[in-house]
């Protein structure tokens, strides 16, 4: 199969970028999208050109490193997969494939298709953790967890933090990502203890970093490679509101002799 690739090339964060056309030919329909890009890069190196920079790591859909906005969709045309799990059989012979980096104020382009997604790490640092060591594996049922809570928490924990939700959102909002983290921790007893503080801190950090506001277009849910549901966003809104309206003030304990 032959393809025309139009790829965003940008030498560094400061330089201007542009779309550049490339041809790749005799591509097997069964290879992955990244293998196709590897072939392109080998071709460019052989010609003495500059290979295209793109993020990738595990190539098995679990690490969240890969990105790419392919023909107007984060992670390409197939629902529920990352770019690394995308195969060339999903494109027709002779197709023009546009490849762009994620676009968001919070994700500056580093080079070509690589963007800096540390903003997502900063949100996690604001509260996406359990502060105390929750210990080893407890005996079964010493900490009761309802089955549906465990399932819902697990579904939310499937978020790999790739940022496709931000890339897909017309407002570049990070609500699906943050709500997945808030949900997976707050549904379990170990995370519940800090849930009230966590949601406020994470939302505040998200706002500071310049992500947009959610306008409920649900584009994030459609493009999420892990099919995280927008019901998590509703849960986060609920938790945030109840934290702001009903949370108990912390008591200041003074030493008394």
């Amino acid at each position, binding site marked *: 199969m032959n393809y025309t690739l139009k790829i965003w090339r940008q030498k560094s964060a400061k330089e201007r970028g542009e779309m550049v056309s490339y041809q790749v030919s005799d591509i097997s329909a069964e290879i992955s999208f990244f293998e196709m890009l590897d072939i392109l890069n080998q071709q460019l190196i052989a010609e003495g050109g500059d290979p295209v920079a793109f993020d990738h790591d595990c190539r098995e859909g679990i690490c969240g490193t890969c990105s790419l906005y392919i023909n107007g*969709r984060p992670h390409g045309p197939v629902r529920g997969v990352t770019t690394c799990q995308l195969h060339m059989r999903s494109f027709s012979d002779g197709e023009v494939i546009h490849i762009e980096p994620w676009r968001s104020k919070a994700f500056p382009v580093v080079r070509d298709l690589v963007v800096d997604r540390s903003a997502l790490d900063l949100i996690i640092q604001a509260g996406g953790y359990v502060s105390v060591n929750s210990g080893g594996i407890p005996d079964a049922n010493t900490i009761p967890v309802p089955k549906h809570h465990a399932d819902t928490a697990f579904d939310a924990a499937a978020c790999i933090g790739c940022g496709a939700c931000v890339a897909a959102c017309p407002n570049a909002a990070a609500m699906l990502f943050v709500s997945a983290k808030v949900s997976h921790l707050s549904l379990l007893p170990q995370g519940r203890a800090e849930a009230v503080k966590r949601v406020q801190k994470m939302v505040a950090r998200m706002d500071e970093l310049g992500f*947009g506001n959610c306008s409920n277009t649900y584009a994030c849910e459609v493009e999420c490679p892990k099919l995280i549901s927008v019901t998590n966003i509703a849960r986060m809104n609920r938790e945030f509101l109840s934290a702001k309206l009903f949370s108990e003030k912390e008591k200041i304990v003074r030493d008394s002799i």
Partner: protein
Amino acid sequence: MILFFSIALKTYCMNKLLQFSSITGKVIMALAGVFLVTFLGVHLGINLLLLSNDGGRSFSVAAEFMSSNPLIRIFEIVLFAGFLVHIVLGLVVSRQNRASRPVGYVVTNRTETSFLSKYMLHSGIVVLIFLALHFSDYYFVKIGLVAPPEGIGPHDFYAMTLHLFSSTWYALFYIFCFALLGLHLNHAIQSAFQTMGWNHTRYMGAVKVAGTIYSIAISLGFMVIPLYFILFR
């Protein structure tokens, strides 16, 4: 003067509102929206009296009640505040959203999602233009800021309506605005539930259906009135 005032208002709003959390801002906007949606139902109820074949008597009685009842006079201020909050927050949020993606994509987004949900600002602006027109046609006439059309008293809303709908262009513009309001509401109602955190697999389907039915009822209800005047008067 007006320019200065609008800039001052904008700066004040931006500085104040930017301190809101994104979720708080949206919740306030949703609550104001829910209030406006309820008001639309009441307004439609009164407007439909225009269709009763009594030369506008029942409509005039209702309009007189609305403009003289002291409780409703107080409610009017709340209503204007609701409009102001919803509109100002809508503009502020849209501005922030635009700023959050300074460099756009070359290929426009092809995500298969609700098309109109991305154009709430646009449909909202059309409704805002209609609102301005509606104010100059009725409210400003009522309070004496704008002179009523010749031969019509400032409180004769029935005659004013007949006068306005005698222009087919006005009637068509009215219908267009309410079509867009319907599309705005269709997304808005379920969106308000989501923003308030009331999204549950058990009832979200029902909320979406009810929201669509309500938005169709509101927009069709308002659209029927000019159609009736064009076709049968």
